[in-house]
């Protein structure tokens, strides 16, 4: 191993680590606000990447139909609860975002998949298809059981993960896809070549993290999320709806997942079930931060990425074993070092 190899591995590790960091942040966010361990986070990655890949290959992705289906279910669920409470105020808004929006997107999908559409426009369209799935899944699956224990929510997450993976196979088939690079070209820095796509990933990751920081620090909604994360009951007492907070968190999680997927789909092949492993590594990173700390999770993610790169050089058959075994000492260290908090304090 010489310096060049070390630098290339470091570059590879940082690139993957940046993606894990984004997913780790999303996992921490969702867990803090809703106590859900979002195992389906990886599916948003897959759906984002493959929806874009299908559009780029001139095909209408199955996610367009899934969005319509989820939207109809959300409208029905909302109608039932509105009928029970005799409260129809706000139903119009539900119809708009859960029924009209998916319908319009489905109608536009053949156009977006048509020839000559610029890539950034397709990225936006794919995001519009995948992001609303976050709050829809929250409304359908998690909101009815929002008071359940963390364990029940975890089990539900596992179920949602399997359902979405199965749908992924149905929509995208068993073979992998790649998307065209968002930006072309490369630069030579020292002995290592950096492609423009690598820069794009790193810059977008940094920008997303900065945007999240601004969102949580400066905006009313962000502060409401933080308040919910610190103390759910307290937040409700001062008039923050935990439901709105939950929906908003899932929107953010879906957005982060879909964007990460589109970022890496140009660098590696994405399969209908790739997201799970990427999400799991984000989860390892989130565990570093004890599912509560954003900066430690981000640092942990970079560490996981770099460790992965170097272990694939030295001991490729044991790469995954090395990465996932890492959880044990970290958990031990955390369980000795941290104060146990009650679930609902």
């Amino acid at each position: 191993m010489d310096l060049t190899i070390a630098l290339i591995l470091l570059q590879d590790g940082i690139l993957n680590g940046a993606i894990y960091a984004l997913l780790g942040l999303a996992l921490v966010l969702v867990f803090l606000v809703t106590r859900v361990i979002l195992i389906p986070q990886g599916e948003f990655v897959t759906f984002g990447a493959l929806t874009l890949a299908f559009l780029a290959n001139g095909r209408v992705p199955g996610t367009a139909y899934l969005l319509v289906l989820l939207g109809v279910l959300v409208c029905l669920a909302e109608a039932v609860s509105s009928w029970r409470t005799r409260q129809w105020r706000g139903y119009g808004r539900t119809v708009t975002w859960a029924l009209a929006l998916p319908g319009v997107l489905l109608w536009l999908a053949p156009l977006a998949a048509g020839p000559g559409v610029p890539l950034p426009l397709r990225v936006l369209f794919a995001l519009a298809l995948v992001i609303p799935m976050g709050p829809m899944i929250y409304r359908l699956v998690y909101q009815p059981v929002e008071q359940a224990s963390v364990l029940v929510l975890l089990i539900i997450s596992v179920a949602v993960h399997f359902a979405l993976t199965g749908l992924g196979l149905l929509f995208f088939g068993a073979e992998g896809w790649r998307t065209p690079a968002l930006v072309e070209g490369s630069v030579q820095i020292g002995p290592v070549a950096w492609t423009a796509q690598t820069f794009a990933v790193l810059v977008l990751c940094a920008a997303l993290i900065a945007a999240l920081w601004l969102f949580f620090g400066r905006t009313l909604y962000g502060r409401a999320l933080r308040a919910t994360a610190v103390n759910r009951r307290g937040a409700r007492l001062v008039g923050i709806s935990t439901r709105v907070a939950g929906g908003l968190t899932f929107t953010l999680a879906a957005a982060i997942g879909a964007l990460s997927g589109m970022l890496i789909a140009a660098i590696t092949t994405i399969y209908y079930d790739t997201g799970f492993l990427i999400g799991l590594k984000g989860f390892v990173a989130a565990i570093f931060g004890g599912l509560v700390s954003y900066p430690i999770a981000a640092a942990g993610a970079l560490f996981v990425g770099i460790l992965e790169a170097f272990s694939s050089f030295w001991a490729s058959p044991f790469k995954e074993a090395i990465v996932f075994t890492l959880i044990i000492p970290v958990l031990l260290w955390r369980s000795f070092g941290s104060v146990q908090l009650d679930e609902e304090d």
Partner: protein
Amino acid sequence: MTFPRSFRLTLGAAALLAALPLAVSAQIKVGVTVSATGPAASLGIPERDTVALLPTQIGGEQVQYIVLDDATDTTQAVKNIRKFTADDHVDVVLGTSVTPASLAMSDVAAETGTPMISVAANAKLVEPVDGPRKWIFKTPQNDALMAGALADAMVKQNVKTLGFIGFSDAYGDGWLQEMKAAAQAKGIQVVAAERFARPDTSVTGQVLKLLAAKPDGILIAASGTPVALPQRELVERGYKGQIYQTHGAANNDVLRVCGKACEGMILPAGPLLVAAQLPDSNPVKKSALVYVHAYEAKYGAGSTNTFGGHMWDAGQLIQDAIPRALKTGAKPGTPEFRAALRDSLEQVKELPASQGIFTMSPTDHAGLDTRGRVMVKVVDGKWTYQPDL
């Protein structure tokens, strides 16, 4: 309301006739389990789709196919074959797509005395033919057959040192073993062996290590679109030697995902992949094209997949063997018929199918020879037959 007697009789006869096909049909039952979901779905889906093309009448008897999905899960595959043998009393089992699950199924096949034709590749399934393996046959080419073809091509291309990167599973392990043996026989040295997993998003580390060993050629032993990841990485990192793939890469989706990076790669494959390019003198050309035409008529032009060909060949084997088994006088659905079918499968001689010419024997349950492989190179984004390699 009363009907005349004769009308009632006719009505009764009509009802009987309507019911009769149900009673007499499905004389011969074939249980098919494939991995249509899970990690091996890219193999299992074309295999499942091929079942619809298999003959529904063999030797004057109706054939009923019962198709189940085992989700690439060994436990589920065993459950499926248990169901086939205990509930459906099938006469023969086809499947499944992957080696570990097929191995587990073979015990049930032997225990219940049911012949089984696997569409998984590993030679361990049928070699040596003893114990439970007496009941097991398989249609894909042995890895050793393909590894031998690769070693021959390497000698012709003057490759002295070989790097290896393969799946960290049974496929990669099996290939490393076979390739080392085949390479050694030809005086080629395997200088580096690396592993990666199907869902990996980066193989930079492994590729750097391979490059550091400076081999003349590199073999990528993986299957389906994952083969594109090391291929692209090697090309991007400026590897100038010859890149070889296994027949696991013989899949049109690979070309789509891999793009320009796959240009010039060389692999051994079943003749089915380049059936139309084969010279008319090739004994497999005609039988391979039969499958291509049948599949593309149903699923669209260019949809043929070599994995589906293995299932088609399993269908050809039973089509050849069932008439002989029927001649023994044994009735389908009985243990005697299953034993007769097993014996009959061993008597398959010079049977042309989509992937080669099958000749089974009591010591060979794979049945393919060197006519079951060709060398293929990717030229201008297309599989191109290489008669000289």
